[in-house]
């Protein structure tokens, strides 16, 4: 049994210190009221203990003033918790625009993590220090939950949709990654590590790593394989909407509603095409549910994201630039997945 045991977790992310401050504030208020009640109860029990069976205490029915004060004051303190907590909650749910994208696929009892440049890891996540990392997560089976205690972040990974979480590490080191939503037999084994490295070490690791072809390249291959381009062509009489520059653009649906074409919309249009039909197009696209797994959908999204509209800039403010780390000496690095390019690697097949 290890002798030394910590009583307080590491604080290794920008949000962690803010959560700890709020935690100490809550702790202080709770300690005050617990001690107050405990002391009062014990003091009254001793001071007013029953000395003889005959003594008759005065009849005090209550006082409205006292009732109001010990309702209003706790409510005031409680609302201060609410406001401070809500501010932190908003910051937790709003990733900065320049965040490094990491795609997470949770599967019964392992974490599969993919960096934008195609590097894949199982139960390990190497991230550079001081850089915001945005996690785009989904699950292949049941609900899991991405929990890194040292960063104070947690987000359920719900199958059928994307969940987003982000953090910015402030201390290099190796921190626990837990699955905190019960997911079956080896729920306790679905753990891993987040390695925060100095930016230089991260570069060397990235370069040295078995970086297979970029996600977008793999997406392009899938795009060919499923003959998506038979309908989705840039020319006018194509039967499917043009995908160039689609990512981040506001589009109007057949029922008049307008939505932003983000990852969730593209994922849903691949797996359940008619749920959000684009205006002016027929509901003829078959569903690919079961034909393309979660990683394949992520690759297609990375590919569609990399398709720039020929004459427009790199998309609206909503579209974070494709944030591949500049990797100077990466062989066979292609910028955009030009149609017809040979699939870069073979071992991508699940």
């Amino acid at each position, binding site marked *: 049994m290890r002798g030394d045991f910590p009583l307080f977790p590491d604080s290794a992310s920008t949000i962690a210190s803010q959560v700890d401050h709020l935690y100490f504030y809550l702790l202080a208020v709770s300690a005050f009221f617990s001690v107050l009640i405990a002391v009062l109860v014990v003091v009254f029990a001793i001071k007013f203990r029953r000395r003889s069976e005959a003594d008759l205490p005065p009849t005090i029915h209550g006082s409205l003033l006292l009732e109001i004060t010990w309702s209003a004051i706790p409510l005031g303190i409680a609302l201060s918790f609410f406001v401070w907590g809500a501010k932190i909650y908003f910051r937790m749910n709003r990733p900065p625009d320049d965040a490094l994208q990491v795609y997470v696929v949770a599967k019964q009892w392992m974490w599969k993590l993919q960096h934008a440049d195609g590097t894949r890891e199982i139960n390990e996540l190497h991230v550079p220090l001081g850089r915001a990392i945005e996690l785009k997560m989904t699950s292949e089976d049941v609900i899991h939950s991405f929990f890194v205690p040292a960063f104070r972040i947690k987000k359920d990974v719900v199958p059928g949709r994307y969940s987003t979480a982000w953090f910015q590490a402030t201390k290099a080191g190796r921190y626990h990654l837990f699955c905190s939503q019960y997911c079956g037999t080896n729920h306790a084994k679905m753990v891993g590590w987040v390695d925060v490295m100095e930016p230089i070490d991260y570069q060397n690791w990235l370069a040295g790593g078995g970086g297979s072809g970029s996600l977008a390249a793999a997406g392009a291959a899938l795009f060919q394989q499923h003959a998506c381009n038979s309908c989705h062509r840039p020319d006018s009489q194509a039967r499917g909407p043009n995908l160039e520059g689609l990512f981040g653009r506001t589009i109007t649906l057949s*029922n008049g509603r307008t939505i932003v074409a983000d990852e969730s919309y593209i994922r849903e249009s691949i797996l359940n095409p*008619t*749920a959000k039909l684009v205006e002016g197009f027929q509901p*003829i*696209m078959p569903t690919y549910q079961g034909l393309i797994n979660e990683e394949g959908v992520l690759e297609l999204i990375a590919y569609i994201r990399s398709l720039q509209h020929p004459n427009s800039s790199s998309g609206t403010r909503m579209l974070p630039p494709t944030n591949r780390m500049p990797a100077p000496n990466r062989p066979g690095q292609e910028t955009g997945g030009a149609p017809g390019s040979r699939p870069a690697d073979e071992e991508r097949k699940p």
Partner: protein
Amino acid sequence: MAEPRPLSREEYAASRLQHHFVSMEQQRDASTLAMWVFLVTEILFFGGFFLTYTVYRWQDPVGFAHASQNMDIVLGTVNTAVLIISSLTMAMAVHSAATGRRKPLLAYLSATILLGFAFLGIKAVEYTDHIHHHLFPGPGFRFPGPDKPAAEMFFSLYFGMTGLHALHMIIGIGIVGTLLVMAYRGRFTPEYHSPIEVSGLYWHFVDIVWIFLFPLLYLIGRHLK
């Protein structure tokens, strides 16, 4: 020992008063309040289904509308009418019990049971028709066109909600059946007929659930093509 003379109505009513109640009126108050509290639990029980229906229809209204076009609107409307008539006959049964007229009471209770069976019969026809058209959700579900997921969700809710309603209808028929037997034995008098009143409340509630189920399941796709 001489044949005991039949009890007068007051003595009979007194015999029906349970020991822990002070007056017959308090007993009737208690049973009516109890049934209404039970009906509140039923409102929330069906409420879970209505919430699921509302969420999934809000997510894909067009898919739900297309699926709903497969419902037979004529049978649906007829069924609604059948239930409303059964509500009338149940109300008249309570009225005849309160006024002590035994023959009409027996007639109205029997009518209510027959209408209940008619409703279940029509539902059975609809169910077999849907199953025949592979519209029962699960692996065997077939639905032409792109709205298959939404249609399967619609039919899961359709069979869930109407199945639960039909189950309540069967229980209702059972209750009214026992009332018919008790009424036949002359157990109800104007002073003591709260079992009929309370069962009437239950029957009307089951009718009200159908009044909401009918538009939500049958009428949402009519205005499309």
